[in-house]
């Protein structure tokens, strides 16, 4: 059951200027697509379109051959989107945050799985401290714990390396290559050199228009 996300002649206008025009994107199982470009070239907007959040764009967007609008539920069930903000409530503990995400995915509550995911993300011992008292890097790790807690075929990650220390970066790179080898696919924007990963295709934005 492979995964195929295809966008044809994608164009998006933001405040009367064309961020990108006539863009073709193809993502297959096992591939990592890295979106690059200077600030303001529309990287986040492209990620929001490809993750089905934005729908005022021109062009066609298909998931496994079906227009995204038609199979939105299936698409969302297989998508894991991490935006600039980690999406972790400061008032809740990491465990409670993860339990909510588990329920959001429709899965039964499983505290043991949450603890394992936190442990794998390097947050052993911080399961019950409110996220408000954790550092930005640790909050990012709570968000990254979702990658293993709720496995999804398509990862769309917007600057996931922000605030991560060296081990965090290494841990995330390991997860990316493992996910690609296991047949999943990733769309990622980062200013990090993804040295250790193979099969990384690049998509330049903000140049085609110059």
């Amino acid at each position: 059951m492979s995964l195929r996300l295809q966008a044809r002649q994608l164009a998006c206008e933001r405040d009367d200027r064309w961020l990108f025009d006539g863009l073709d994107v193809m993502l297959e199982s096992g591939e990592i697509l890295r979106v690059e470009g200077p600030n303001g070239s529309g990287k986040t907007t492209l990620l929001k379109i490809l993750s089905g959040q934005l729908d005022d764009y021109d062009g066609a967007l298909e998931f496994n051959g079906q227009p995204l609008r038609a199979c939105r539920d299936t698409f969302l069930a297989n998508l894991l989107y991490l935006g600039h903000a980690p999406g972790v409530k400061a008032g809740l503990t990491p465990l409670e945050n993860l339990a909510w995400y588990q329920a959001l995915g429709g899965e039964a509550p499983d505290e043991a799985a949450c603890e394992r995911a936190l442990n794998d993300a390097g947050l052993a011992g911080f399961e019950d401290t409110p996220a408000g008292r954790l550092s930005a890097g640790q909050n990012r790790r709570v968000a990254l714990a979702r990658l293993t807690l709720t496995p999804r075929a398509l990862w769309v990650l917007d600057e996931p390396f922000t605030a991560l220390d060296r081990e965090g970066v290494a841990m995330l790179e390991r997860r990316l290559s493992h996910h690609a080898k296991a047949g999943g696919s990733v769309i990622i924007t980062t200013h990090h050199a993804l040295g250790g990963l193979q099969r990384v295709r690049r998509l330049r934005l903000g140049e085609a228009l110059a």
Partner: protein
Amino acid sequence: MWAIVHKFGSPQWFYRLSCRLEPWCWVLAALSLGAGGVWGLALAPADYQQGESFRIIYVHVPAALLAQSVFIAMALASLVFMVWKIKVADMAAAVMAPFGAAMTFTALFSGAVWGVPTWGTWWVWDARLTSMLILLFLYLGVIALRGAFSSRQSGARAASVLAMVGVINIPIIKYSVEWWYTLHQSATFSLTERPAMPASMWLPLLIMVVGFYSFFAALTLLRVRSEILRREGDKRWVRALKEIPS
């Protein structure tokens, strides 16, 4: 069906259509407003009870009717924009809102002024005037929301949602205000009950209503064309328009 909807919705098609329609609307508006004005002001008989101040009706009633029809038209345009993503519909909705607010204010002002000789005070919480005041707040809300967003697209879509939510509430607000007014029925004369008007009175009123509505149509066509020039300025067909002075 899809192709047709988009063909009719295309700015270029609409621009050509309104070029032909607009002059006729202006002519109709000028004629009926002129004739209706003269008839209502000078020829129609005064009301035996209220005297000459009754002539304000020829301005108050058309403005009040138009104020509500514009809101409904705006909500319909917003619905067309949200469902079929037709940009021209959003331009129409954006253009109608200020005119609707102006008509609501006219109705409020003329109603209040009419109240002075009949009730002796500027403002009376009459059911229809109160509904009209709330309608003005709804208009201001839609206009303010459309302008509050940095990007025009989301401002348009937010204003569309509010216009549709607003239009559902207009009858509810009207009903509840009518009911509220009858509960606090003060002894003063209210605009709602009036003896049926003889033909010599409602005919000029009808002409004035036709005048107001054709004015609204002509103004909307003109201002939507301007919106098209503003938003589609970089399109080839706009640059090729002969109206642009070279």
